[in-house]
């Protein structure tokens, strides 16, 4: 195998596949990056068995030549050294070639590395997905959906299924739900392609989505999503991202969302976020980072927190409107900030049904986003 490649393209590709490579793998060869070269270009592969990523660099794109002197072949290089080597080379191009002893020679300017590689034939074959369950989303929309849901997945393994984002598709509507059982984030959107498709109980590991989001570009190009029983594939022109799905039944959450409210608050998103942020400065000391919210007359809200060892903070927020019963409720400042941060709209509606019940946060006049937070009970 041999090729001469633009170094920045190679670095970007390496960064992509590195997202899938873990230092703790059960199959030793998975600690390496597989490099394959043919006349179309070169392909890099990284995998930790849960996530597998392939990144392709075409020989030529839009009339610009990326790779020269290609001689077909393949090798597995050690991920521990290869990325740093490429990053620190002196020239804008690098030549990589291998010999029949699986030695990898990396040459750029006067720098020459000889790295021990492994036979690519030893590298596990990525499964080929056979499915008609495919649909398309725009790159930027998928990134947005991930940003709006994945923060709410559980980070503890007590209920493994909750470490994933649940995806359901029905009637041309696709819905993503994530919850760690203390708060819930959901996002719905209409599908523009493949209306007949329907599936449910697809649970994508939160980590997979978080990594995917880092790799895909923020543009309006399409990404194809294909689903099988236990795997999901995200595919763009040059990227192939395969993830295992989580086993088990995702809990039914829709019936847990209150459908009526006793107190409704309409307020400016940013102002509320900043008030909560300030109140939480002192609340960080207490265990659950708890702040208290009280409704007052004249559409006033009072946000407060009291940590006896540190001090207390009280802030009045003038809202657009408060309707319904008076309310006093305590909740985690962190959950509230997480929820408000992903809302881009200027106004937000919060619907409460009592101090001990979940409350709903939604951007004003946007039903696609729904967030739920469980309050805390103070003694």
């Amino acid at each position, binding site marked *: 195998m041999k090729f001469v490649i633009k170094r920045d393209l190679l670095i970007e590709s390496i960064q992509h596949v590195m997202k899938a490579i873990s230092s703790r793998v059960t199959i030793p060869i998975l600690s390496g990056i597989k490099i394959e070269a043919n006349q179309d270009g070169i392909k890099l592969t990284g995998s930790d068995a849960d996530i597998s990523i392939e990144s392709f660099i075409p020989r030529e794109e839009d009339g610009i030549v990326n790779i020269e002197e290609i001689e077909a072949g393949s090798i597995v290089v050690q991920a521990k050294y290869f990325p740093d080597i490429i990053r620190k080379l002196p020239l804008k191009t690098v030549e990589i070639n291998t010999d029949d002893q699986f030695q990898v020679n990396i040459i750029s300017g006067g720098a020459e590395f000889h790295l021990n590689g492994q036979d690519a034939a030893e590298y596990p074959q990525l499964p080929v997905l056979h499915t008609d369950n495919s649909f398309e989303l725009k790159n930027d929309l998928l990134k947005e959906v991930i940003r709006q849901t994945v923060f709410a997945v559980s980070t*503890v393994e*007590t209920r493994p299924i909750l470490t994933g984002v649940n995806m359901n598709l029905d009637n041309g509507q696709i819905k993503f739900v994530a*919850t760690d*059982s*203390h*708060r*819930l984030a959901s996002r719905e959107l209409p599908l523009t392609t493949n209306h007949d498709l329907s599936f449910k109980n697809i649970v994508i590991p939160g980590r997979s989505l978080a990594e995917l989001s880092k790799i895909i570009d923020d543009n309006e190009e399409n990404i194809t999503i294909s689903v099988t029983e236990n795997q999901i594939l995200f595919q763009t022109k040059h990227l192939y991202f395969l993830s295992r799905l989580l086993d088990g039944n995702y*809990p039914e*959450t829709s019936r*847990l969302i209150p459908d009526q409210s006793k107190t409704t608050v309409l307020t400016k998103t940013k102002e509320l976020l900043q008030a909560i942020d300030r109140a939480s400065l002192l609340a960080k000391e*207490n*265990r*659950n980072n*708890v702040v208290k919210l009280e409704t007052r007359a004249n559409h006033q809200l009072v946000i407060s927190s009291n940590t006896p060892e540190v001090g207390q903070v009280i802030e009045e927020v003038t809202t657009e409107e408060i309707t319904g019963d008076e309310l*006093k409720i*305590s909740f*985690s400042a962190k959950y509230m900030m997480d929820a408000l941060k992903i809302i881009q709209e200027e106004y937000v509606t919060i619907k409460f049904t*009592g*101090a*001990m*019940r*979940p409350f709903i946060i939604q951007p004003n006049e946007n039903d696609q986003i729904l967030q*739920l937070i*469980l*309050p*805390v*009970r*103070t*003694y």
Partner: protein
Amino acid sequence: MSKWYPKNGRVIFHLDMNSFYASVEAAYNPALKGKPLAIAGNPEERRGIIVTSSYEARKYGVRTTMPVWQARRLCPELIIIRPNFERYRHASKEMFKMMAEITPYVQPVSIDEGYMDISECQALGSPLEIAEALQSRIKSELDLPCSIGIAPNKFLAKMASDMKKPMGITVLRKRDLPEKLWPLPIEDMYGVGAKTAEKLRKLDICTIGDLVKTDTFQLKHTLGVNGERLQKRASGEDQSPVDPNAIYDFKSIGNSETLPEDTVDDSKITQLLRKLSRKVANRLERKEVVCQTIQLMIRYHNRKTITRSVTKAQYISEEADIFWVANDLFEQHWTGEPIRLLGVTAQGLVEKTAIAEQLDLFHYQDQVENEAIQGVIDQLTDKYGKNPFKSTKQKRDDIQPGTSFQKDFLDDFRNSNE
């Protein structure tokens, strides 16, 4: 007057009530005075052990933690009575009150002993005069004997109060150490238990004086930082302050009980676990704390003892929850061998007022069962400024705490100070 007080030092008292429970009983019923008397948890059963005994009983060799049957054999005319904790609590409260009248720096250690820092009490007289006045006041008003140790720090005061009993007052100055402290066997040193003593003896350390002379590095090697601390204390150094609040930093609440006979009987074991869980739950409630960790102790017939614990994400305080967790631990870890003793301990305690319970999406309906009632209480609390309701508590006087409970009295002390 000030010649009795060091310029750059402290004067610490350690006050130790002499055979406290027995003395209280004798004060309560003077007919018992001068007779061999012992307090035991359960005089009838084999698991009953001597909690404390009068000096008359001690002459026969009756000792604390001795089984009742053994004590009876040593002293056939021994009078054994069940503990009356309310009486002891009351006496203890009175005694601490008298101490607190001398100085606010009183640190209770248990129901019948405590430290006082009287460094700034020159106005009340010399340390010896203060000690004599306190001792005679406790004797005349409560009819109880005590011993007081006077020293420049807590450790020496503690050692001093032990030197003369009953009704002793002992001054232990640093210059007295070679003569009074260092000849004592190492086992007599406060802070040296059976295990530590055994280790020290292996290093040929038989007296407190030997400990002072031993190489610090070697001690550290054998006993860790504790070795160094013990050595410092033995040579008369102890900087620890008399901290009135130290006692409230309790870390765990636990109960254990020996079964009437070694058993593998599930129903008996479950019954005991339930009982222990109830006791722990009651004590948690009394202290208004909740816990996150439950520890189970199993002692088998051959005295082999294991402890296993589990930490939960949620705070627990209810009997049913504690039992559920303890039982779970039991089922996981019981080897099936006959069991002699079981213990349940709540750890990771947090005061109820300091915590907030995060409700759970899948369980909040169960968590908020009393929501309506709570709402009314909140409204009335707002209206009247304070909660007009009091949660009814089971009357606890009928619950006889076991020997491990002796620190609970401190809640009385704390409340009386508020």
